[in-house]
Structures are given as C-alpha cells and as structure tokens.
C-alpha cells in the first residue's frame, strides 16, 4: 500500500497505534502523515532552521516507532509525541548553541511598502488576518525573538501560545506542574515584551 495516498488518515489514532505497535509500518506511515506537519512546525519554531527541523522531525517519528510498544498513555499520544520532539529539539539546539543567533531589529521595516516596523504592527489595527503575507513575516520575527529567551521560557511559549497545547498537555510534555508552567508562561511573556521594547529602542 502506498501510504502517501492512503485514505486511512481518518482511522482513529488508537487503532493506528495498536497496529503500528505490532509492527505494521503502513499504519505508522499514516500516523506520520497525520502528525508530521505540526511536529515539523514546532521544531522549526524551536530551531529556526527548516532543514534541521525536517531531519529532527523524521527522527522524532523514528524514535516514536522504536518505542511504540512502551507507549501506554491512551489518549495522550499528541503529548507523548511532543515530548519526544522536545527532547530531540533540545539535543539539536544544544549541538548548535555555539552558533550565533540571528540578530534582528524591530526597527527594520517588515512591510517594505509602508515601512512598518514589527513594533508598530503589533499595535496596529490595520494588520488584520487577511494581511497574511505581512503577518507571516511578523510571526517569523517573533519566533526569532522567542528563540532568544531562556530555553525553558521559550519552550513554554512555543507549546502553549504557538502550538496551542493546553496547560495540562504542555505541563506533561515539560514534566512540570501546571502551576509552574503558569509561572513560566507569565515570565516568558514578560521577557518577550522586554525584548520587543529593546528592539524598538534599537538596543537589540
């Protein structure tokens, strides 16, 4: 069966896991198809490198397949996958941490036509979701800034504010309590604002 064209994408995840854990690689291919995109996006935001994130995402699924028989947390598959992804991302991140982070300036025009800067765009009503191109650029700048935060704050922001995981899911992934996660998120947002402020003043 060519999994790429398979319609099994609608098969319940528990069923796919059951089959894959018995060695059915096609079933696992469907899982890959189903979850690759969001794991890849998470890793891209984390590592800020599309190519490295791609390799890391494949690695996440290979590790998941290897350990599928040990997976017994019914209903928490997404969280389990994010946990593996977070570990892979940390490893990849650490191996690259000597590389200098790409610098950006909030005063650098994001929208060439209007000359708008990142800071002005965040507070500007005219940037509606229909302005997709501009907004995507803006997102990228913000993700770059998140990467410059302390890793534990960056992870909390990426999982909750970017990927949209619930507190319960994200705290499971990070192995911390929801209370601690709440504290981290609040600090992370505060730190992000500070970065934006610094960038606006041109000191970043």
């Amino acid at each position: 069966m060519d999994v790429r064209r398979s319609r099994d994408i609608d098969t319940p995840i528990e069923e796919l896991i059951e089959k894959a854990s018995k060695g059915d690689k096609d079933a696992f291919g469907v899982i890959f198809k189903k979850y690759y995109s969001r794991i890849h996006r998470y890793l891209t935001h984390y590592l800020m490198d599309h190519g490295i994130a791609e390799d890391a995402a494949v690695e996440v699924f290979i590790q998941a397949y290897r350990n599928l028989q040990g997976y017994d947390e019914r209903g928490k598959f997404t969280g389990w996958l994010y946990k593996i992804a977070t570990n892979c991302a940390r490893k990849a991140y650490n191996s690259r941490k000597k590389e200098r982070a790409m610098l950006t300036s909030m005063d650098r025009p994001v929208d060439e036509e209007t000359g708008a800067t990142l800071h002005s765009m965040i507070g500007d009503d005219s940037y509606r979701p229909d302005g997709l191109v501009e907004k995507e650029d803006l997102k990228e700048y913000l993700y770059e800034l998140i990467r410059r935060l302390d890793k534990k704050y960056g992870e909390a922001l990426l999982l909750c504010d970017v990927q949209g995981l619930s507190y319960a899911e994200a705290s499971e992934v990070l192995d911390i309590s929801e209370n601690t996660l709440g504290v981290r998120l609040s600090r992370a947002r505060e730190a992000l604002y500070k970065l934006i402020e610094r960038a606006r003043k041109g000191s970043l």
Partner: protein
Amino acid sequence: MTRSYSGNDMEKRLRGLLRDDSPDIAPDDRVWDKFSRRLADVSQTPSPDRGNHGLYFAAALALVIGVALYLLVTPARPHVSNAKGTVKIFDSSANRWYFAGEGYPGLGEGDIIKTFDDGECDLVSDGKYYMRLRSGSELLIKELPSKIFRSEIKYVMDKGDVLTYFRKVLPIHDKMSLETGSALVSVVGTDFMVKSAPSMANTWVGVLTGAVRIDGKDIDGRIKKDGGILVNPGEKVVIDKGKNPPEPSRMLGGEIADMSELYGMGNKEQVALIISGGTERVKEMLEMPIVYISDKSSSALIREMGKILGELKEAFVEGRKDKYLSNIASFEAFLDEHPDPKYDVILRLFIGAYYEKIGEHAKSIAVFGDISRKHPDSALLSLADCAIAVIFEGPLADPDKARELYRKILEKYPDSPEAEYARLRLVR
C-alpha cells in the same frame, strides 16, 4: 502610523500573532523518502514479556540494590585533597614522610597526615566521609574498613582541629571514631568538629547535625567505660583529660559560624538555614537569614531551588518589590510542588522572613503559621511561632497579642531558645 494601545491590547495581539494556525500539510515526497528509508531499517524496541515482567524487574532490582549496598557500605580508602601550605604524609609501610602531592602510594592503616602552621587539607573517602584538617593538626589512621564485615573507621588525633562530615547509611554497620588525648568521639551521625588542645589536656567537640557520642579517658589514656554522653545538634562540650565529659551546652553563634564550612564539604544535597543556636536566633532569622544550597548537588530539584533563590536575592538587592514578590510566590509554588520534609520547614522559615523583610506582615505570619499546620512535629516550630509573636510585638504594635503568643511558646516549648526569648520579652 503611530497609534496608542494598552498593555492588554498588546498582549492579546501578541498572543494572536504567535499562534501557529497554519493548516496541516502532508509531508512532501522528499520527506517521505527520508522517512521511509529510516523506517525500513528500524525495528521496535521489544516490550518485555508480560509474563516474566515481574521476575525481570525483581532480578534487576535485587542486582541494583546489591551493588548499591556494596558501594555504600564499603567506603573507598581515603586520600588527601585540597592540600594548601605545608602538609606531610607519613607512609608507615615505607617508613618515610612525603609532601602531599608528591605522589605517595595511597593511605593505609598506620599512616599519619600532618598539617603544619601554614597548612590545611581534606581527607576524603568519596561519598562516605570528609575530614578537614586545619593547620597544626596531626591525624593517625588507626583502622580502615577493608571488608564488608569489618567496617569501623578509627582515627587518632593528638592535636589539632578537624571538621568531619560522615554520611551514615546503615546505622549498625557504619562506625567511625576519632580518639584524642582526652576523649573518644564516636559518630552517631553526620557533621561535627573536634578540637584537640596541643597539650592533649582537653578536647572541644561541637555538633552541627546528627549526633556524636563522647567517652572520656582516664589519666593513663584508657577509655572510660562509664560516663559517656551524647552530644546533639547545636551543642558543644569540652572534655578534660582524666574526667568524664560534662553535660553539653549550647554552641554560640560564632562557634557555629566557625563550623559553617562543613556545609560545603562533601557531595551532599545540602540545604541549610544558617542561624545560631542562641536565644536571639528568632531575631537573627527575621533579620536576614542565609540559606546555604550546595552547588555540588546532583539533584536537578536542588539546583532549580538554588536558581530561584538566586533570583529572589537578586530582586531584593535591586530593590524591586514586584519582582521580589513574584519570585517569592514562585518559590512557594515550587515548594508546594516538590515538598521535601528534609528542607520544607527551613525554606518556609526563609520565605516568612523574606516577606517580613519587605513589610508584608500578613503574608509572613501566614507562612509561619502554615509551618505548624504542615509540620506539627518539627523541631523548629518554636522558631516559627516566636517569629509571629515578634511581628505582633514590633511591626504590628499589638503587645497584648504578642504577650499571649509568648505565653503559649513558654507552655509549648519550655526548653527551646525561644522560650528563653519569650521569658525575657514577658518580663519587659
């Protein structure tokens, strides 16, 4: 294009912008090829045979426990480290003296470690005990454990000062003693200091944690069979040669401070509140307590705790009350999340004191009050209760309430330093 906007608007917009709402896209052919190639070579980690799962687990556990016990109960032979100034080692098997660091062939029974007036060194048996010999000390290794069944460690010190941290794992099995000219100091547990006068006329012993047993010596140097005493944490005793040890007395703040380097000795997961054992310790604690957290700790939790405390202190130094309060709240949340009976009380005392330091009296009282609810058997309850009384007496200017609380302290903890403090306050 300048617009005004509030912080809340900003937060909403920012969160809206951060959300990754891109649609899921199936991996392209290149990624599929990569994935398929990798997957083809992979086999799954076999799950353990469910039927034998318990058996495997039990066997593995027994093996781990066996190895751990062996390692724990058989201390490594000691070695000298951190030698500063002149430190010499007598190798009894070769009958010659070496300078520390000169490459002596390892320590054994009969060897002597001698620190001169400018010298100091540590004697370390990894994971088991650490002894710090201050200048002018001479220590003889009388007996070392070589087998699992003979585990007594015996040292003899004719003169000098030695700080000792001993990690007691098995109460019956682990024995260590230090003999001086006038006493035999036997370890019951953990941290203590022994000072032996050069004339061997007397021996000073102070205990920081755990306890030690002290036996006196007769005038001929034989250990007396009767009259031994137990010295508990915060206590000291001076034993004169030829006499039985007297009743221990409480150590003074300066004496405790003199021993505080014990907290940094060894690879212990150490969290300690450093205060003296005197009557005024409640005031000392409310002033600015010091919490010592070992930076050698292998525990991620302890390291995390150290980090949060570091931020808290930083906020205090910067004078930023908002940051300070948010850090204390995080620290409390951390303690709630990782309750550890070993450290919980001292860390909550610390938090209470830090709230008080910035005038958050109600919060401070709540934290101190919580200690008796959470740890009704703690030996430090008198300190927590007394701190509340001090706050009512001082900052809250409620002498009636303070008197009531002091009286309760006298009833509940009559032998504590706080009872003495309460007595003094009630007289005034």
